[in-house]
């Protein structure tokens, strides 16, 4: 029992990342009808926003401290960051420590701008071209984006820690009546799950309860009629693209402490996210979220020792296996709508 709960928890953080990326992919696909292979790159750029902010915050100057010496006996230099110098050790240190969550504020405007630029500059011209062309051009864009990041940040993963409070693990089992020490779970993964739940809830609420969201949903159902009603649906769809980019970006920001970002992380996640989208059903937002969590949890169950002993190698292929079975038995995915992506 405790093992099962542990595996569900382990699946949640990866599942959250899948769900967030798949949600953005589905938003773009549902509104603009574009298959965006560069979405993983947006996730990666978000992660590097966090890296950039932490580098900026860590800028500082060095002073010689006469009271201390280094191992050679020379006076030691002490690095003080500007932010601590200006705001004092208390507040400045706090800001430094909370660099990753703060990077969300920094990443949202950047990601929205990148999203707008991508949609207006490139993807707009591909609405009337075949899906294969859309896949190919965004695939090319993804290569370009990741090479740019590689040029500036190098090829190695960059460690960026979570805030002090959330480092380490806690005993989740004691909360629900297990003996101590049975279900140990890192704090930050729980934070990530909570964060993903909030973002997903916010996106759904935005689409469900605002006038803007209503118009967008109407446009998803019948773009032409909404246009005939005198609504500039293209502009709204562009904003939705920006929103989808921001969702991918913040998903990347928060993922930084779990997995040090490197330039190819976007591609790694993208392939799986596409599988997630297809399993959930192209164009279905709840399907994308459901499939994201489902596949994340299945993946972590498949990595249990007992399961691997029974079916060796299953942890490597479970997601693809599920995708194949679902595509062959339910061609539209779990919750796909009729008439989406059907030739």
């Amino acid at each position, binding site marked *: 029992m405790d093992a099962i709960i542990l595996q569900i928890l382990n699946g949640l953080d990866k599942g959250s990342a899948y769900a967030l990326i798949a949600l953005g992919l589905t938003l773009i696909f549902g509104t603009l009808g574009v298959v965006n292979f560069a979405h993983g790159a947006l996730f990666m750029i978000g992660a590097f926003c966090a890296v950039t902010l932490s580098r900026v915050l860590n800028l500082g100057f060095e002073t010689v401290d006469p009271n201390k010496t280094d191992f050679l006996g020379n006076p030691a230099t002490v690095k003080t960051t500007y932010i601590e110098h200006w705001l004092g050790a208390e507040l400045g240190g706090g800001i430094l420590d909370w660099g990753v969550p703060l990077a969300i504020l920094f990443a949202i405007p950047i990601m929205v701008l990148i999203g707008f630029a991508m949609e207006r500059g490139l993807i707009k011209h591909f609405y009337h071209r*075949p899906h294969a*062309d859309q896949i190919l051009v965004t*695939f090319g864009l993804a290569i*370009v984006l990741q090479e740019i990041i590689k*040029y500036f940040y190098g090829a190695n993963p960059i460690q960026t820690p979570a805030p002090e409070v959330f480092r380490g693990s806690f005993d989740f089992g004691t909360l629900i009546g297990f003996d101590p020490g049975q279900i140990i779970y890192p704090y930050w993964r729980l934070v990530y799950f909570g964060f993903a739940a909030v973002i997903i809830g916010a996106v759904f609420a935005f689409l469900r309860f605002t006038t803007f969201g209503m118009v967008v949903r109407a446009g998803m159902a019948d773009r032409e009629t909404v246009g005939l009603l005198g609504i500039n649906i293209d502009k709204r769809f562009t904003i939705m693209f920006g929103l989808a980019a921001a969702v991918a970006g913040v998903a990347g920001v928060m993922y930084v402490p779990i997995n040090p970002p490197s330039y190819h992380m976007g591609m790694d996640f993208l*392939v799986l996210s596409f599988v997630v989208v297809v399993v959930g059903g192209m164009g279905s937002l709840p399907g994308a979220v459901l499939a994201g969590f489902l596949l994340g949890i299945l993946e972590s169950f498949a990595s249990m020792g007992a399961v691997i002993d029974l079916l060796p190698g299953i942890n*490597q292929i479970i997601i*693809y296996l599920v995708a194949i079975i679902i*595509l062959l038995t339910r061609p539209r995915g779990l919750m796909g709508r009729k008439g989406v992506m059907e030739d």
Partner: protein
Amino acid sequence: MLGLGKRDFALLLVVFVLTMLAPFLLNPFPVNSAMAQFNAGYPDLMQRFVIFGIFAIGYNILFGLTGYLSFGHAAFLGVGSYAAVWMFKLFSMNVIPAIALAVATSGLFALLIGYISLRRSGIYFAILTLAFAQMSYALAYSVLTPITGGETGLQLALSDPRILDAAVAQGGNIPVPGLFGLKMNASTELAIGDWVFTFSVGYYFCAVAMLLAFYMAIRLFRSPFGMMLRAIKSNNTRMSYTGLYARPYALAAFVISGMYAGLAGGLMASMDPLAGAERMFWTASGEVVLMTILGGVGTLIGPVLGASAIKYMENIVSKINEEILHSWFAFLPDGLENVLVAVIYPFVGKGWHLTLGLVFMLVVIFLPGGLVEGGQRIGRLLRGKKAKSPTKSTQSNPAE
């Protein structure tokens, strides 16, 4: 000639001459000159040109003719390599049985995957093929280690049985793959003045294989079967309305293109007898898509051009470093030199992927027919506009 039309025969002849003279054509610079690093005429790289050319020709038969975008084609190449290496290990170092087994195994594998994947089309087909390829990759890396060698890859060993010929070559070394006594790594050098040209057995063997593959591709493109595949691409639904069941044709195209990939894999293993799982990774599948699109999808010669262009960039452009750039622009004033080098440097050397991505995007946006269409447009411009109507291109019209 050879059952080909005049234009096709001329094309085949041009390709024949180019591949046979490649050791000269790709080595235009003297050995010790500053430009010598742009010489691509060394056997290893030339072999890669033709092997990936075969891979891309095969991919083009599927994607170019039927329009099915497969994102998992590298799996067949990987399976082909494994099969060939096993043939070397168990039976003989002769490359013919190894390649035959590679082609047959990949064909069977493609039949299995294609039979399942072709039930869906469009992006679902792409995801299904991707899923199968990723599964093969993951399994080859982990569970199938006894067959695939896992992370280290499958290599020859002295203890292999090799029941048909001597298990151990003279001197106690592992024998080299060969063709009835001709060793694949044998080569002769020809020095003319400052130029040195290398002729290797391996390259010419691969080149002959590519010419055969190319010839068969032309025949296939011009056959009623090829016409049927094009019809699947332009309107599959209408094909069904006329009472024709199109899936066996698509499956045949899938298997043929899988066998081409197997041939490429077998040749790769023959040139260098080892096989690793990374050949099946999805980036390798993405690479063949890039090659085909870059050269010109649906054209005959395009995939070969695309494969050569990408392999040239990977091996030659990636070697340009900052010092070389400085030496090129040394004639400029210092400030200008540094600015130019700083601007160009991100695009060459280790950043060659960036150039590749940009070129690829530009091709998809402006030249959907790839380099071949670019060449045709330039040709048309040079000839003036009067030659507009009679140019019957090999490009098939993309349709959704």
